[in-house]
């Protein structure tokens, strides 16, 4: 119903105004609405899985999962916007201001955390060898053998691992990627 939409929109605007412009919110809301086939104001995994392009994205399901808070299988518009806010480009004034209380969602660290969570399935704040192998297996073709993949995973962990526990903690993850222009590579331009 229309009034429901309005309320939702207003609520989200109040919270996420810091991240998106009004027109962006409107646009994203209409997208949210068109994805929401159940018309209950929230998206389920199936709603996301209906997007055809995601099925051919090797990380598609992981990214879908990132939209859902732990233990839930519905995401409302606020949650939807919250996740998308990670991908907003960092702007000059934000960089200097630092967003008084907490870090903004689109800060470098939060972008990295988003990527980190894609690997870290069990949420123990460590990327273990197995978790890394899973992602690698998703991202490479079938023409690479397990043995080769294993050595790749080992090397990758070696590159990042500073304390020798054969896994990558988030701080190690930040450290090893410090030269990567994450702000740029994890940002998309939402239409104004």
């Amino acid at each position, binding site marked *: 119903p229309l009034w429901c939409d309005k309320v939702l929109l207003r609520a989200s605007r109040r919270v996420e105004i810091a991240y998106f412009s009004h027109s962006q919110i409107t646009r*994203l809301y209409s997208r949210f609405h068109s*994805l929401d086939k159940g018309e209950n104001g929230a998206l389920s995994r199936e709603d996301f899985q209906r*997007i055809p*392009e*995601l*099925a*051919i*994205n*090797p*990380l598609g*399901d*992981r*990214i879908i*999962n990132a*939209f859902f808070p732990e233990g839930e299988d519905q995401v409302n518009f606020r949650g939807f916007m919250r996740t*998308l806010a990670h*991908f907003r*480009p960092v*702007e*000059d004034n934000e960089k200097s201001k630092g967003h008084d209380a907490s870090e903004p969602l689109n800060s470098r660290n939060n972008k990295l955390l*988003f*990527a980190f969570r*894609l690997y870290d*399935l069990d949420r123990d704040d460590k990327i273990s060898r197995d978790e890394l*192998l*899973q*992602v690698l*297996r*998703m*991202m*490479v*073709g*079938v*023409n*690479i*053998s*397990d*043995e*080769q993949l*294993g050595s*790749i995973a080992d*090397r*990758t962990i070696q*590159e*990042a691992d500073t304390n020798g526990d054969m896994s*990558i903690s988030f701080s190690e993850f930040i450290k*090893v*990627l410090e*030269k*990567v*222009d*994450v702000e*740029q*590579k*994890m*940002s*998309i*331009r*939402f*239409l104004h």
Partner: protein
Amino acid sequence: MAVLRRPECLLLTALLLFCWPYSSSALQWDEDLNVELRDADNATAETSLNKQGNQTEHAPATIDTLPIVTWKWHHVEAPYLVALWVLVCWLCKLVFELNHRVTNIFPESGLLILIGFVLGGIVWGADKKATFALQPTTFFYYLLPQIILDAGYCMPNKLFFSNMGAILVYAVIGTCWNAGAVGISLWGCYEGGAMGHLEIGFLQFLLFGSLLSAVDPVAVIAVFEEVHVNEVLFILVFGESLLNDGVTVVLYNVCDAFVSLGAAKINAAEIIKGIISFFVVAFGGALVGVIFAIILCLLTRCTKNIQIIEAGFIFVISYLSYLTAEMLSLSAIMAITFCGVCSQKYINVNMDERSVNTVRYAMKVFANGSETMIFVFLGISAIDPAIWVWNTGFILLTLLFVFVYRIMGVFFLTWFLNKTRLVPVETIEQVIMSYGGLRGGVAYALATVLDPVKIKEKNLMLCTTFLVIYFTVVLQGVTMKPLVKWLKVKRSAQSELKLIEKLNNRTFEHTLCAVEDICGRIGDNWWIRGWNRFEQKWICRYLMKPSARKSQDYLFGVFHQLNLEDAVNYVSEGERRGSLAFMRSEDAASVDFKKKFGTDMSDIMPDIMVNTDFNGLDVSMSSVTRESVPSVSLEIHENDTKNLRNNNDVNVHHLLQQHLYKSRKHHRHKYSRSHFSINQSEDEVQEIFQRTMRSRLESFKSAKMGVAPAKKISKHPQKDRQQKMSNGKSLDKSKAHPYGDEDFEFSDGNSASGGEAATYQTPYATRSGIVNRAFMPEMDTPPTMRTPPWLSQAETDGSVAPSQRAQRSLPWSPSNIRRLAPLRISNRSTDSFIMADVVKPPENPEDRNSRRDET
């Protein structure tokens, strides 16, 4: 100059003395001949031919005895002088580069201009007139093309095209703005009476403004490379200054035409024609370049049998594109730029690796050489009292306007561009960009082309151009580096790319694609995607060698180039570090060596040395010159192990890079908003799709605790497998390695139809109880693969090496491997292919060749 040490001074004086007698004697020989660098063209050729004719006519008449040797200066005069000047210029560079203390502070270009002053002064002192000056024909036909070609050919393509919009805006609008603003402001000041009386009209001012708008890439790029500014800033300045040269020339020609036309005849129609001609000339030039690039690519497709000269084609065809554009009165600079930019990817794939290296080096030699000459002659040409006409108002105002309008233009355009850029250009970068507006050879050459009949104040303009060049190159050049450091411009990360970075870059790309899809918008990279699809489908088919294309289909087409560079960098980097490590641990290594090889090796040492030399292994000079035998071989030994280790690293890098799924960004797939279909030929997409679907089904099933719908599931893996099989086969055939072709097919078929099929459906039943919402890739393990690889392989084909090695060197325990994703059937062919390589050394060379061909 004061810092020069003694040997350098000696060198300098030596070269001065060396060139002195020839130049002066040549001039005294006949004053009017004016044999110069510039006169390598027709006119001189004729005169020198005449001279030759005269001499040969006279010779038989005058001699009365057979001369044993004769002095034939005139035979060789022109080429001799050219060669001599080239030598002198390069020696200048050599002298400066001997001492880095000077070049650290003072940019090389500025130093070369200064030494040009000295040389010019000497010539003038001997001759009392400026005999040697850089002529526009020499500049445009013999010195400039290779610089532009080098820039275009070495252009980082991806960056260039992804920033194309911004670069074009800077190059076209920025240049027009500079030219117009400088011209109009000067005219305004002139009308206001700031420069006294000059015979310059409005159009002439515009012409002058247009010739001064050429930004020279050389000096800025040198500084940028030294301090490693970030790549966006680099490409903006680099691309701008490159295209800007072309635009300037076009603009100059348009203005020149207006001047010839005269103010009276100019009406609206002419102005519109001028604007049209501007775009036609600029983009027509680019088109000529693209056409020649296509010709070049087609040519390199079939140069396999003449590898020795295939590198030469690049130069000849590019030069022809330059001349053709010139002939058609289109922008030659644009032509050669686009020829280089467009062809680089394909010719690098088509040509042999050695030829690619040859081209790169030769291009650097030419470009660097002519750059040096240009700067030296910028100094020499200035020593001519005739051109020095002083007009304080005119000169100072020009300097001011050139400086100010550049800043204004950059800031305004950046402000405009930042509205649409994902990552805005920062203020500091804008400062650097505007400060980097150095003027160079193009401005000078255009100024000398000015027709003194039409432009009465040519000398004033020339002199002002000189001053602008000196001011910008020397002053701004010197202060640029401290400024970059002081402003803390964002540097680019100059590290070897790590595996984890590569992996994450790919992750980021996939993530962005997914988010864009979720947001339901056509992303920023829509054009790039479309282009890639088109390129894969059409361009590669025609412009690439079939062999190169085959590996492209299978591997990462777009990043192939990058891979090669990475590998080369990696090896050289590793070697550098390796030798350093060796230096540190010399004692330990030598002990090791003695233990290992003992004295019996010493008699065959020379052989080793020779061999390694011929293998092209990097035996450093120090090791060769060192007399003692053991140390030589020691280093070789050290080098060898180093190489091995490097190769391993490189292999791992390659492996990952080649097999990571492409994100859609550089991925061709049939795509439409309304209709979703998977292209059958695209294994990768299908593979991911099937995997995703299977896993979804799994989690769906496990969530519902339902019974496994066996029919539906079994369909996928079967299809999958068949596809894989055919894939594997075709792969084997395409590789056409000389051994074991049928063997592999046999084993493929065997393992597919063999024992594994029996265990086919069981795992789903056993696993159906697991609740796992998240996407766990191990769940998509086709049941056939549940058995550890070596077991199944031992059953089916015990004869092939892979199973043995797999057993030997598997680094993890069987419990681990169960969690891993499947070892697919097609692996085995690749796998055993690689391993057979290990087991059968005799076939190595061919094998390696074939693999090199593919990558």
